[in-house]
């Protein structure tokens, strides 16, 4: 069980500001097909900088159950 | 291009085949290290073995400076300071009178029947104890007015060491005049020589006194020859 950032695809406008505010490499990826971001939760350190930086309030920190 | 003394294959002139060690004591800037280099170089040109090394501190002008020359017909192993010299050369009276020396008293370690050559215009006033000790080891004390010879003949104090070498050759015949001249030419004739940065600067000063290297060598050889004539033994 751990906390990690999660994107609400409905709200994401693909501005990529979250990618530029994340201190971790290769965590937030940009999907060229739907022009939205995806988060690799396993590498997320839960700093919340993307949450603060997202103008669309599309990211929140959630408690993930998987190991 | 590079400083080198190619060893002459000719046989020794036969003078003084046995080993000799010389301790030169002077003050920084007087050329004790250069003198040792030239004497050692002349011996090597003669087909002998020689090692030459200086000893000084981080101090510069007028601080004690010593150099040591070992010459032998056989391989030389011992290194460093010469503790038991055959010859002691004193380039400046202050070595004795002001104690500007690595060895106190200045004759310490001199072998029996050894030679002392002092640069002074007049005889020095040794203490009674010094006189007693010097005569006990049967020291042969010579004086040479090296500074005035240098000023008279070469018109520069930088040639004091040449006069001292002349006195040495006059007394010991340790190297020939020809080899000495050749060694001198190798030392000053080449474009650049470095023993230490300070020595290099003094070399340039020396060269600036003379229009040409050959003139420098001739004049300095004149100093040497005059010193050969003027060195005098004194009773203790």
């Amino acid at each position: 069980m751990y906390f990690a950032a999660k994107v609400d695809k409905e709200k994401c406008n693909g501005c990529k500001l979250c990618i530029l505010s994340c201190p971790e490499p290769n965590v937030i990826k940009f999907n060229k097909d739907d022009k939205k971001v995806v988060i690799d939760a396993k590498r997320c350190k839960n700093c919340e900088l993307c949450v603060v930086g997202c103008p669309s309030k599309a990211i929140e920190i959630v408690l993930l159950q998987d190991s | 291009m590079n400083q080198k003394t190619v060893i002459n294959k000719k046989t020794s002139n036969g003078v003084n085949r046995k080993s000799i060690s010389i301790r030169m004591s002077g003050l920084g800037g007087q050329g004790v290290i250069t003198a040792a280099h030239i004497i050692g170089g002349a011996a090597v040109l003669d087909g002998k073995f020689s090692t030459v090394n200086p000893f000084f501190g981080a101090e510069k002008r007028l601080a004690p400076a010593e150099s040591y020359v070992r010459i032998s017909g056989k391989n030389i192993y011992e290194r460093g300071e010469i503790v038991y010299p055959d010859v002691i050369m004193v380039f400046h009276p202050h070595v004795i009178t002001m104690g500007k020396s690595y060895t106190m008293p200045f004759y310490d370690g001199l072998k029996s029947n050894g030679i002392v050559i002092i640069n002074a215009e007049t005889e020095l006033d040794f203490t009674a104890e010094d006189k007693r000790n010097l005569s006990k080891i049967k020291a042969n004390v010579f004086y040479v007015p090296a500074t005035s010879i240098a000023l008279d003949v070469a018109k520069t104090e930088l040639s004091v060491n040449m006069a001292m070498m002349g006195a040495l050759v006059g007394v010991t015949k340790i190297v020939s005049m020809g080899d000495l001249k050749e060694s001198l030419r190798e030392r000053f004739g080449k474009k650049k020589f470095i023993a230490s940065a300070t020595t290099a600067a003094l070399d340039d000063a020396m060269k600036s006194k003379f229009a040409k290297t050959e003139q420098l060598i001739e004049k300095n050889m004149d100093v040497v020859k005059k010193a050969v004539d003027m060195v005098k033994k004194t009773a203790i």
Partner: protein
Amino acid sequence: MADKAIQQKIVEPEELFFKAKREKQFITGSEAVKESIKRANVDMAISYPITPQSESMHLVGDIYAQGYVKDYYRGENELGVMSAVAGASMGGVRVFTATGGQGALRAFEMFPTWAGARLPIVCAFFCRGLNSPLTIQPDTIEIGLLLDTGMLVLHAETAQDLYDMILKSFIIAEEPDVHLPVAVFADGFFVTHTREIVEIAPEDIKLPPYNPYKAPVPVMDMETPPVRQMRDPFVMKSNYVSYACHASWQQEVRAAAERARKHINKYLGGLLETGNEDAEILIMASGTAVSQSRAAIIRAEAEGLKVGLVKLKSLRPFPKDEIKALAKGKKAVIVPEFNITGWLAREIKSVVEDNSKVIGAPRVYGGMTMPPKLILEEIRRCSK
């Protein structure tokens, strides 16, 4: 870059070391260093005018100006120089520098780093006393302090040794199964400032260039694949694997030094040299202490005393088996040293079977000379 290129023919190391006709020159130890570097095909040399100073590194500057070395500059301090030669070596060029005494200690942190990064740097150390009280005079105390940095450690007796050891060190250092820095020590003044006859190879030949792609570690030039763990191994991860890597890497550095033995044997004719090793009394020494011992032995023989001499040329790798065998059954092993700590006696005591016969004397330090008479007195005492 120097203004004019020098034409030198590249020859095999064996040719330069052993076959080329040598010429005798009457030069100082510092000049011998210059002559060595002239023929070593060195790419870069970096200097610092340390106090204590020898002329070696500014003479190397002169041959840079003549075109024998591709790049050269005066660094800002000893640590800066030792760091810059590391950078140059990681960049894949052959480098040389020299230091000694206080300067060496100021840069100390880099020496184990060189070894750990497997850099084949050749550095000459000209031994001087260490503070305090202030001294700049000859004293070999620094060797004892630098023995366990992972570098190979050689100790020159004469200017001839210095010339040969530096030149050969490049080839030994760069052997792929070694690939370690080599520290060539020589005693300040006694060797650096002493003018003596040295036999040297012609100046128109030089060693083959260094090939960094033969190194057992990647050269840092972005011409080899980027890997996750770089030439600086295994730092900063706190887990069992990283500890195990670090430990095994240290073993590998030491093992590489041991593998240098065969190359030292090949090029330097052995880690040590012996004379009269059958005698009951042996002198074991390195550096200038060997010269003083030779002079003492001549006098001992004149008195009818038989003494053998063991000259240690390599201190890392240390010729432990050789020394153990040589010392076996001897009456005494005399170890004269130019330092107060007696590191060589300590080393020898650690490998001989009965170490009570190892005599750590005479010792002189702080710039003192060692009259052969002092060694002779030990020989006489042991002969009774």
